[in-house]
C-alpha cells in the first residue's frame, strides 16, 4: 500500500511536470531526439496510408536500445518520422511528437502525445482511427507483453484525438488487432 501510494504520487508529480513543459515550436516539423545507441534490429511498423485508407505492415531496420521502455519510445519515434516526412502517406500536423511511452506492469503501455499532435490532427473517423491503430499495433507488435494501451495528450486524458477516435478508453490489444485486420484489407 505504501509502495502504491508513493508510486501514485510520483506518477502524478511526473505527469504534472510534463503538463507544464513548453511545447516544441511549430516550425520544428520533425521530432528532435538524441541519436539512439544500440544494435540495428528488424522491426515491423504498421503504417497508415490515407489513400486508400489502409494500414500496411512494413519492415524496417532501426537501432534499438536495450531497455524495454526506451525501445517502445524509439519504435514510435521511428513511426512518427515516416508521418512527418514531406511525402508522408498519412501526414500529421507540424510539431507532432510522441513525448513519452511508459510501460506500467503488467501489460499496460501509456503513450503520451504532445498537444500539437492532437491539435493539428486531421478530423475524421477513419483518418483518426488509422493513427490510433498504427501507434497501438506497432507498439504491441514490437514490445512483447503489452496487452493494453492508453493514449494521453500532453500528459492528460483527452476525450478524442481530433473529434472522433476515442482517447478516454484503454485499448485492448486483441480488439485492436481485429480492427487492424480490417484496415489491412
Amino acid at each position, binding site marked *: *500500500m*505504501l509502495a502504491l*501510494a*508513493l508510486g*501514485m*504520487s510520483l506518477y*502524478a*508529480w511526473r*505527469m*504534472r511536470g510534463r503538463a507544464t513543459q513548453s511545447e516544441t515550436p511549430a516550425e520544428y516539423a520533425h521530432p528532435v531526439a538524441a541519436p539512439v545507441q544500440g544494435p540495428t534490429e528488424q522491426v515491423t511498423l504498421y503504417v497508415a496510408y*490515407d*489513400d*486508400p*485508407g489502409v494500414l500496411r505492415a512494413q519492415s524496417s531496420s532501426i537501432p534499438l536500445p536495450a531497455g524495454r521502455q526506451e525501445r517502445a519510445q524509439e519504435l514510435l519515434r521511428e513511426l512518427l518520422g515516416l508521418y512527418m516526412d514531406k511525402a508522408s502517406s498519412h501526414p500529421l500536423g507540424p510539431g507532432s511528437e510522441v513525448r513519452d511511452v511508459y510501460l506500467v506492469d503488467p501489460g499496460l503501455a501509456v503513450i503520451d502525445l504532445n498537444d500539437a499532435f492532437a491539435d493539428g490532427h*486531421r*478530423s*475524421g*473517423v*477513419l*483518418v483518426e*482511427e488509422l493513427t*490510433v491503430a498504427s501507434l497501438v499495433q506497432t507498439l504491441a507488435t514490437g514490445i512483447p507483453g503489452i496487452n*493494453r494501451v492508453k493514449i494521453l495528450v500532453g500528459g492528460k486524458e483527452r*476525450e*478524442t484525438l*481530433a*473529434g*472522433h*477516435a*476515442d482517447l*478516454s*478508453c*484503454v*485499448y*485492448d490489444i486483441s*480488439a*485492436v488487432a*481485429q*480492427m487492424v485486420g*480490417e*484496415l489491412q484489407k
Partner: protein
Amino acid sequence: MPWSSRPRDHAAPVVMAGMAVLLALLVFDAAVSGFSEEKRLSVYSGAASYSVPVREQNGAEYVGLLEILGPLGTVNGRTDGGVWRLNFNRVDGEFTPGQTRARVQGKSFDLPANFWLENGHGLVPLSSLPGLMQRFLGTSVNFHENARRLFIGNVAVHFTAQVNKTNPPTLVMNFTSPVNPTIATEPGKLRMVFNREALVPPGSQTLTFDSPVIPSATFQEGNGAAEIAVNGPVPLFASFSNNGRTITITPAPQSAASAQAPVAPSTVAPGGPPPPVQPGAPAVSPAAAPSPVQYFVVVDASHGGDERGAALSDQLEEKDVTLAFGLRLGQQLRAQGISTLVLREGDATMSLEQRANMTNTAHPAIYICLHATSQGTGIRLYTALLPVGSENQGPFLDWTTAQSGFRAASEAAESSLAAELGKRQIAVRSLLAPLRPLNNITAAAVAVEIASPSGKLDDLNSPAYQQLVAESIAVGIEAVRNQLGGAR
C-alpha cells in the same frame, strides 16, 4: 533517562509506515490539486461574451484589467516609474501597486483593496469592477458579484417557461436570444448550464407548474454561469428548436412492457436490462411514464453547437452536414412507418454521455450515428471497437462496454445497410472503430461516415445524394427489422 531495555515491539515500524503513507498521500494531493475547479468571472457585452480567471490575493478576489478590457476594445498597459498606466480606447487610467487610490480620465477612484501588478498585468479587486468598467466604457454595468457575472449594457437574455398540458406534458422555454447550454440529467432533475449566455432570472428563482410530471424549475447562478434545473419524478429530455431560442422539455421516451414483442436471439432477456451505469452516476431505474412513446430508431447527427466536428471546407462544417442528413433520414424512416427519434434537430451542443443516455433511455432497437468527411469517397459503416472495461454488476452493465451484448445485432444491421448501399452503386466499407458513444449504447449501434461519392465536396451537400443515402439506410433498417426486434 536511559533508554528502555524492553523487548523490541512492532508499534514503531507501523507508525512510521503510516506516516510515510500520509506523506505520500499529501504529496499526491498537492500534485493533483491543480485539477480543482477554477474561479471564473463571466463578462457579457454586445461585442463579446467571455470569461476570465479570478485569483485570490490577500483574502480578496482579483481579476486582470487587461484580460477584462481586451475583448472590448484596444487596450495597453505600461509601467511608468512607480505607476501602471492603462489606456483603453483612449481612456487613461493610472494605478499604483500597493495602493487603493487610482485615477481614470483624470478623476480619482478608490479601489476597495490595493491594486497589484504582476508581470506587467494589473490586478484589481473584483468588487471594483462596476465602478471601473463604467468609467472606462461610459456605459451602464450590472454586476452579480456573488455569481461573478458582469453585464455590460442591455445584454440580458430573458426567458419564459410554460407547461403545456399535452399528453405527455411539455415544458416550453422561450429565450430572447439563441442559447446553447450544456445539459446533464440526474435522478429527478434535468440541468441546463449556460456558460456564455447573459441569462437572468425571471421574477422568481423558483418556477412552479401545475403538472405532476414537471412540477417546478429553479434558476441559480454561480462561478460565472447560470443554471436552470427542471425537476420531475421521471427522466426528462430536452430538444432545441427555433434556432436555439426554444427548449422543449418532455418526459424521456420509454418503451411499454410487452410480453408479445419478439426478442432477437443475441440480445437481452425479456424486459431488458436497465440502462448501463455511467461511471460516478447512480443507476437510474426507468420510471413509469404517463404515456410511453416507443421509438424503433434513434438517429444521432454527431457534433453540433460548440463542437463543429471536422472543417470540411472553409464554409462547410461537419456538424451542418450531419444535421441535414439526420433530419432527412428521420423523415425517410417516418415515411416508411418506422418510429424515429432524432436526437439533435438544431445546432445544439450535446456531450457523448448525453447522446448515449438519451438513446439508452429511449430503448430503441437500433441507434444510427452520422458523421461526414471530406476524405475518401462513399460510405463507411462502423461498429464499436470495445475497449477494456469492468465487469457488469448484476443487471447493471459496465458503461464502457455496454454495447458488448448487442454486437451481433449491430453487425446484422451493418450488413443490411451495406447491402442496400451496394445495390444503389454507393461504395461502402465496413470497419470497427473506437468511436463513442457506440460502445455505450444498449441497442444495435452503427455509425455512418458519409463522404462524397465523387471526391467533390459539393456532392456531399447535394440533396439527391443525401436522399439516396437516407433511403439506403432506411430500407436497410427495414430489411433487418425482424432481427432487431421491437423497441425494447
